[in-house]
């Protein structure tokens, strides 16, 4: 009951944000939070539901950004509304490649391959000057246009990313609550058993990788058309680290977790920017990760849910045992 009210309140606040957020810089932070929500949700699909950690997720983000930028700049000058799906497709193909090649590896080896892949892509973006303009980057990426109006203002862009984030959330929700989501969780929980009832491990893990990568590509495209500049910096490992922290601290394997994590780790650093230098924050990220592993292994959202469940059962309310359906929420 409280949860539903909170969500309604949050949604209302989000939709009306341009009116009550006075400082345009704060609106910028919210826009970044929305983009990171999409990225965190995409990583959560892989990590939280299949159990495979991809530390190369910035690669999908970057491929999306570059694809969208290159397609909408001269000589092609395609519309944003075509560049965006193209970016998703390009990242999706990369996700497919990673999925097909690497998912038979699993665990730490999968992680290493994803890092290596991201490393190679990053080097390509720096060295292939003819395509990417190298370290100088691609300036002047045009903003999206709706008919004759270009979405230049932060307010307009806010609604775009808000819609995209809501769509990403919906995609995840539908996927997770479906037969496909059950298959993914089953593969994570007990792969031989899942296979014995006809669940094709390779097919579904690759599917998860493709959707995850495509979603990250959408995030990349939105980022490119917002900052209007793309450089090899999109492949920085710190982006991947941030995404990982958001998912793990927020709560992997839940839908609300990445959203909470994205908000927390976009807004918090900005709020603390005056007081605490960026390096201290990154240092804190590392410590937070370690602490999470020890004390909140499932992240904040499941932790909160568990406390609530515990409190409710103590108060005598009959409730299913904690976690009985949480994996599929």
């Amino acid at each position: 009951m409280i949860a539903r009210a909170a969500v309604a309140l949050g949604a209302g606040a989000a939709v009306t944000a341009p009116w009550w957020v006075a400082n345009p810089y704060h609106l910028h932070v919210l826009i970044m939070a929305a983009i990171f929500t999409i990225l965190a949700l995409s990583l959560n699909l892989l990590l939280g539901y299949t159990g495979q950690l991809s530390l190369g997720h910035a690669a999908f983000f970057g491929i999306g950004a570059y694809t969208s930028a290159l397609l909408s700049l001269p000589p092609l000058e395609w519309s944003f509304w075509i560049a965006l799906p193209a970016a998703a497709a390009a990242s999706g193909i990369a996700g497919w490649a990673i999925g097909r090649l690497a998912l038979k590896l699993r665990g730490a080896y999968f992680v290493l391959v994803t890092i290596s892949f991201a490393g190679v892509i990053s080097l390509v973006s720096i060295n292939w000057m003819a395509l990417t303009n190298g370290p100088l980057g691609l300036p002047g990426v045009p903003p999206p246009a709706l008919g004759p109006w270009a979405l230049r203002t932060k307010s307009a862009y806010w609604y775009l990313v808000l819609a995209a984030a809501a769509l990403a959330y919906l995609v995840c929700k539908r996927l997770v609550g479906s037969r496909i989501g059950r298959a993914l969780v089953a593969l994570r929980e007990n792969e031989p058993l899942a296979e014995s009832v006809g669940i094709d491990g390779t097919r579904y893990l690759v599917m998860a990788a493709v959707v995850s990568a495509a979603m990250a590509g959408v995030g990349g495209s939105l980022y490119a058309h917002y900052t209007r500049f793309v450089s090899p910096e999109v492949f920085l490992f710190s982006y991947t680290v941030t995404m990982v922290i958001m998912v793990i601290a927020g709560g992997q394997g839940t839908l609300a977790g990445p959203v909470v994590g994205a908000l927390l780790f976009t807004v918090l650093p900005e709020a603390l920017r005056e007081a605490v230098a960026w390096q201290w924050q990154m240092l804190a990220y590392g410590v937070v990760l370690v602490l999470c592993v020890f004390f909140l292994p499932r992240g904040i959202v499941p932790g909160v849910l568990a406390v609530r469940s515990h409190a409710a059962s103590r108060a005598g309310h009959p409730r299913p045992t904690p976690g009985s359906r949480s994996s599929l929420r």
Partner: protein
Amino acid sequence: MEQLLQHLVNGLVLGGTYALLGIGLTLIFGLMSVVNFAHGEFYTLGAYAAFATLALAGLPFFVALVVAIAAGALLGAICERALLRPLRGHSIDTIMLVMIGVWIAMQNAELLAWGGVARSIPHPFPTAPLTLGPLNIAPLRLFVVVTAAALIALAWLGIQKTRLGTAMRATFQDRDTAALMGVPIGRIHTITFAFGSALAAAAGALLGPVFLAYPSMGDLASLKAFSVVILGGLGNLAGATLGGLLLGVAEELGAGYVSSGYRDAVGFVAIILVLLFRPAGLFARAERIG
């Protein structure tokens, strides 16, 4: 031909230090099954320790090396004791996440301590290269490769010949039996991690003066270390040594003949190709340590 030989020599210099990195990680990842993404940070630690000793304290190079090794061993021991021991028995993924946290924390600690500007580490060797036949080699690099070789030999001896080394091998081959025989399992784990980290720090102290020291130098070092371990096979000392040399030479040849911008890609591509086609490593037949 001369150019080829020159590249080979440079490759061996790099490769010797990569071998040190790889041997350290093959002990930690191969034997202890700890996915140590912070391995490169111990390399960075070694470089900065050398910087502190040489630039700030003005002590001899040899002392710098000892300081680096000691720092690596000490911090490694603390890491293992405080973080890994309580998590023993947890899944490999959990441990991997913890080490990622350590990686981030250590790197940003270095950033805070030393600043983001790259530091040049002074060394006592003359800069004029020595000429050995058709080859030129800077005295510093010669020192690096000789010292690396010596350290590798010491590591080998330590693991193959001493009682401690035997205890290590026994622990990771069959823990329960080793425990029954009175081997202090907990201490062996700590020592192994400290040993591996010390080797990484040594590599950092050696290569730091050759290039520069900067806080994110550990990222590539970690990945190259993993590359070496995968090339050589987990837990395989000889494989790690050969793998390290191979990687160093391949990088130099690639940088010299193909493109220097993609030099670091060699390690990445090696990881991908080996894991896909020969996951047990290139030298799979060679004897495992454990």
